[in-house]
């Protein structure tokens, strides 16, 4: 199986980085790319790209344009463009997106629905 060769995003280019020591509970919305390394509980409602890093723990329903997961997610994910699960990703919940990539070694438990780009 071909591995996903996607370039790692540079932290310098990101406007919002939520560090390892951050614990947040509540609703989060944003339009620029965002990286999460800490813990989040609640809802993520965004029109931008979300990067969920290796040590991150998300207990939330995520809505975004693109979702890249290297950490742990419990909740449903709805993306208008794509969802990528890397080898270290652990996802429990349903994924709805027009494009879904899963790397060898990732954990995914839930339904996966490939929607057409217009319907999301």
């Amino acid at each position, binding site marked *: 199986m071909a591995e996903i060769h996607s370039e790692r995003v540079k932290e310098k280019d990101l*406007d919002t980085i939520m560090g390892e*020591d951050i*614990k*947040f509970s*509540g609703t989060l919305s944003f339009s620029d790319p965002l990286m999460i390394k800490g813990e989040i509980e609640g809802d993520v409602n965004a029109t931008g790209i979300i990067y969920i890093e290796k040590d991150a723990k998300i207990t939330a329903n995520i809505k975004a344009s693109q979702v890249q997961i290297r950490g742990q997610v419990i909740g449903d994910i709805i993306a208008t463009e794509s969802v990528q699960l890397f080898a270290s990703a652990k996802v429990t919940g349903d994924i709805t997106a027009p494009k879904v990539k899963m790397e060898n070694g990732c954990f995914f438990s839930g339904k996966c629905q490939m929607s057409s780009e217009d319907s999301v």
Partner: protein
Amino acid sequence: MKKDNIIATLGLNTVFNGNLSFNDFLTIKGKYIGTITSGGTLYIEDSALFEGNINVKNSVIAGQIIGDVTAEEKIEVLSNSVIKGNLKAPVIKIADGVEIQGRCQMIQDADTIDIFSTTVNQLKKSVTII
């Protein structure tokens, strides 16, 4: 204070609604509604709008705050910031051109330098230059 070691930033186009806690440093540039509790340093940039209560160790404020700010060590309010709420800390530094509507309370603390009993040189060392 050095800003190089900041690892967490909440950017301009973000809206947070809820409770947040952190240990080291956090910079807020966007909108935040809720509470922040931390043993670290919180920077509120001039583009930020904060509604809620802040309870941290150190706080540097340049934006707009509606709510109370409590710091264990120090609150620095930079020019052009607007605060509608109470400030509470052992050391409070307020720059020119700041709008504050609320009470300002200096907590008595054994670690705090008493300005009436220290020499001018010691006082100069204790002041942070922005």
